[in-house]
């Protein structure tokens, strides 16, 4: 705050002058920024220009290239949004997005916290390292690889179904059953992410002052009491931050996973906003309609993320960026 206050006393002309003096002294620093800025403008800001499609009747054949065609398409105001909000597909994909990601948070959020507590109780260092490494590996697999592995396990002729049949049961159609499919998404998400998040909490536990545990031991606290009165308060900021992030990104996560795992049989329960945008937008060339949906998604996500960041900064004095 002080720095900003001081700066205001210097006149604008003087500030511009100081800026150029600095640029003259460090020209290379500014040259260095150029590759990154070119990237930023081409691939992050130029697409924002394309968002106009949501308010136009976009026809890709009107221009020399797809972006040129945007300016030549007719403005239609909020027509696409009206069409969107009155369609049953919209409510369906919005509901699916919230249900699937809500289930993931409810079921998976506590697991890495518990895992980090347990991991911390393993006294043998080598064994602790081994288990941590093992649960951490899946994070580095792509969704396609994970799909392949679980298809191998849970497919109609996979090992699980072979076992079920041997025991006299009926084959379970994990990938096409409407009741099971969402749980398959939750389970595979957990399989991939729990280890990674455990490492984050482990790092937070390592940051706790060791003398607190010693003091607790002197006071006669047993392991359970130490956990409850030292460890939990110690990592609470991390827990809250992670929860805020998860809620903030609730509309934006899970896209590639669903895209890889789902199939027409489960569209009703698994089609989320982004998979719908991709399937209808690219597949049926409904560019304007799906850009409108994408824009709606971005705006809600933006509000959620900014809100989450504000909560995080106010309560924890930590900002996401």
């Amino acid at each position, binding site marked *: 705050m002080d720095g900003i206050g001081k700066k205001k006393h210097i006149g604008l002309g003087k500030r511009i002058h100081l*800026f150029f003096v600095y*640029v003259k002294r*460090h020209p*290379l*620093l*500014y040259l*260095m*920024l150029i*590759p990154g*800025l070119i990237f*930023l403008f*081409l*691939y992050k*800001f*130029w*697409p*924002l220009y*394309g968002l106009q499609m949501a308010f136009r009747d976009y026809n890709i054949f009107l221009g020399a290239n797809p*972006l*040129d065609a945007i300016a030549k398409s007719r403005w239609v105001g909020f027509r696409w949004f009206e069409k969107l909000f009155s369609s049953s597909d919209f409510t369906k994909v919005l509901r699916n997005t919230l249900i699937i990601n809500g289930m993931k948070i409810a079921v998976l959020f506590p697991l890495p916290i518990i*895992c980090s507590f*347990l991991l*911390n*109780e*393993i*006294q043998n260092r080598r064994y602790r390292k081994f*288990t941590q*490494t093992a*649960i951490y*590996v899946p994070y*580095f*697999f792509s969704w*396609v*690889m994970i799909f*392949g*592995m*679980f*298809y*191998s*396990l849970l497919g109609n002729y996979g090992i699980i*179904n*072979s*076992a079920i049949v041997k025991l006299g049961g009926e084959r379970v159609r994990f990938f096409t059953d409407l009741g099971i499919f969402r749980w398959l998404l939750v389970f595979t998400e957990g*399989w991939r992410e*729990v280890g*990674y998040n455990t*490492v*984050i909490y482990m*790092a937070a536990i*390592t940051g706790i002052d060791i003398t607190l545990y010693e003091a607790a031991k002197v*006071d006669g606290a047993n392991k359970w009491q130490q956990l409850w009165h030292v460890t939990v308060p110690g990592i609470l900021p*991390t827990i809250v931050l992670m929860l805020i992030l998860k809620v903030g990104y609730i509309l934006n996560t899970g896209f590639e996973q669903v895209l890889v795992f789902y199939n027409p049989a489960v569209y009703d329960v698994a089609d989320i906003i*982004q998979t719908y945008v*991709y399937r209808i*937008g690219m597949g049926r060339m409904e560019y304007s309609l799906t*850009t409108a949906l994408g824009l709606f*998604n*971005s705006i809600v996500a933006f509000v959620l993320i900014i809100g989450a960041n504000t909560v995080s900064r106010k309560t924890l004095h930590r*900002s996401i*960026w």
Partner: protein
Amino acid sequence: MTVKALPNSKKISNRIPRDRTEKIMSVIAYIVMTFLALIAIFPCLHVISKSVSTGTAVTAGRVLFWPVGVQLDTIKYVFTKTDFFSALKNSLIVTVAGTAISMFTTITTAYPLSKQGFKGHRFITLLYVISMVFYGGIVPCYMVVVTMGILDTYWACILPFAIVQFNMFIVKNYFEGLPSEVEESAAIDGANDVRTLISIVLPMSVPVLATVALLYAINYWNNYFHVMMYTTSSSMRTMQLYLYDIINNSQAFAENLSNGAKGVGNYLENITTEGMVAAAVSLSIIPIIAAYPFIQRYMVHGITVGSVKG
């Protein structure tokens, strides 16, 4: 309150042997974590075992996490009769070139922004933060790639992902934490900014650069959706696209096999659709498993670096 409770709790701890809860928790910890570790490893062992087990064992569902009767026909088939090597080549090109480009742009962006007193720091940082929050969407991004004329080239698989903002901020934060005295003394000795960066800052930042390079490499290697959108010809397919095709078309592969390769005898017996999928998955996870010691060494540290400074 706590002071009063102190003698009381001491009494309790005298009655109950002090290490009892410790023992119980420790036993629970060993059991649960071992179980979770097995769940994490099992699918990997299963596909690898399946890819080298005999066809009859695979079909009968007798392969768990150890090969049943070893054969290499399935892997040989994947190597010779599918586009495995073409996909591998594409993935390697994209991953190696992409990581190099990403590291270059990330370092050249992070370094000026990390400099104390760098004029324009706030504005440039703001641009990157804005780009993290506002997303043009799937369709507009596709239109940009088409308009630039890079559709169906390696560039389309690399340039749109050249900077992951989060990675750039990790590097920037790390640079900021370096002692500025060393850099200043270099400046006094007449070194310009590029020289200081190359000969002083980068050698001091090896751990964080290794972490971020790894994050980029995995990002490129695992990229499925964007490569699928931005490439059209089958000769441009990377490992992820190839793998997805294998999984979804394994039935068709098997039919081709039984139509075209009659009389090969033993060779054919071992190749099953299940085994094919398993072999393709196994081959694609090998690079990640191979990189694992490296991941293990730098990544835990990297996550900590990223999460400590917000």
